């Protein structure tokens, strides 16, 4: 694939994540609204593969830092990187990388379970590693405390991993070539 085409894909996925921030948050059982944005992070890794997925998330976060209000709820600008959830934003590229890597590793499995596991690994395990670390640094709390505060978001994110797997499955039916981690 040409370098230019990769670059266009990277930019378009970053734009897709921004658009997903617009899907209204669904209030979940824990009372914490879940937004579609981390769903996009999971999908970027699975669809584009580790490197391009990570680059597209890095681009997204870079443009958010430049001042575009692209995070869900219209947040953006440098303030995001000073707030308690800064670690999550910084973790987006790493989460996409992990999800993509896992998806390639599991590509012999049927698409639904493979994507589900990849999304959980990248979008939850790796992303929370960054999110909790960021929260700990900014709030100066202990590891366990920091993890406890963030744990309320995990059930919602598990739902998102299932959704990511369904979306990948549906896209694979319509446009099989679009899922780059399952080629060859």
């Amino acid at each position, binding site marked *: 694939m*040409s*370098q*230019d*085409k990769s*670059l*266009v*894909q*990277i*930019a*378009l*996925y*970053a*734009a*897709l994540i*921004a*658009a*997903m921030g*617009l*899907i*209204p948050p*669904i209030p979940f059982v824990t009372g914490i609204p879940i937004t*579609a944005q981390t*769903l996009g992070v999971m*999908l970027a890794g699975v*669809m584009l593969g580790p490197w391009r997925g990570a680059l597209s998330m890095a*681009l*997204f976060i*870079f*443009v958010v830092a*430049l*001042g*575009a*209000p*692209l995070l869900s*709820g219209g*947040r*953006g*600008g*440098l*303030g*995001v*990187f*000073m*707030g*308690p*959830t800064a670690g999550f934003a910084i973790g987006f590229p790493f989460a996409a990388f992990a999800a993509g890597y896992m998806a390639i590793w599991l590509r012999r499995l049927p698409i639904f379970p493979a994507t589900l596991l990849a999304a959980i690994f990248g979008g939850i395990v790796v992303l929370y590693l960054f999110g909790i670390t960021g929260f700990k640094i*900014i*709030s*100066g*709390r202990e590891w366990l*405390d920091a993890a406890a*505060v963030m744990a309320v978001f995990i059930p919602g994110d598990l739902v998102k991993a299932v*959704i990511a797997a*369904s*979306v990948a499955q*549906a*896209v694979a039916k*319509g*446009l099989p070539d*679009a899922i780059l981690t399952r080629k060859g």
Partner: protein
Amino acid sequence: MISLYMAHPSWLHKLPAGLKLLGLLLLSVLLYPVANLGLMGLMLLFTLILYASVGKPALRQLLILKPLAPLFLLIFLMQTWTVGWVSASLLVLRMLVLILLANLITLTTRMDDMMSAITPMFAPLKLFNIDPKRIAFAVTLLIRFVPVLMAVIQHLMEAWRARGGKRQVWKLAIPLTIQSIRLSDHVAEALAARGGISTITNPRVSTHEPR
């Protein structure tokens, strides 16, 4: 409109972006050891005065804190419970000051200027054979396509509501993703037909912001 920039000239608009960023960096380091509640309170007051000095539109931007309020409350309560209300207040005040100051830079700096203040940091990428121009092109492309995809999702949501739209709004992510992939194929073809990115001489971050 996809920028938080405020086209409302003020003294802060005139400062160079690099200087503002450096100031924020310094302040974020300096504020860490501050353990005096009064001093931190004064910093917050100073921050609010800065907002006021920039003008009314800036003060209205203080509303960005609203969505963060529940999380702040949660942090404050847990921190009060474990280490007492003094350090809990210090923590919340410090976060408020830094978030507000960072946001003030965003409000008073055009994306172009922010981009050119940051671009020198990409110079090392040349070692990996990555042209910084390509990064500028990717940023432009992203900024250009966000409104397009936002229109797509708006249409999808209207159609979904027209069909009764109750549960499973997340299913819209499927057509949204498929349309984005199609769009990216078309753009890549159009780009190839025009000779590719390397032939574009001067990609600019165009955000339609008046100077």
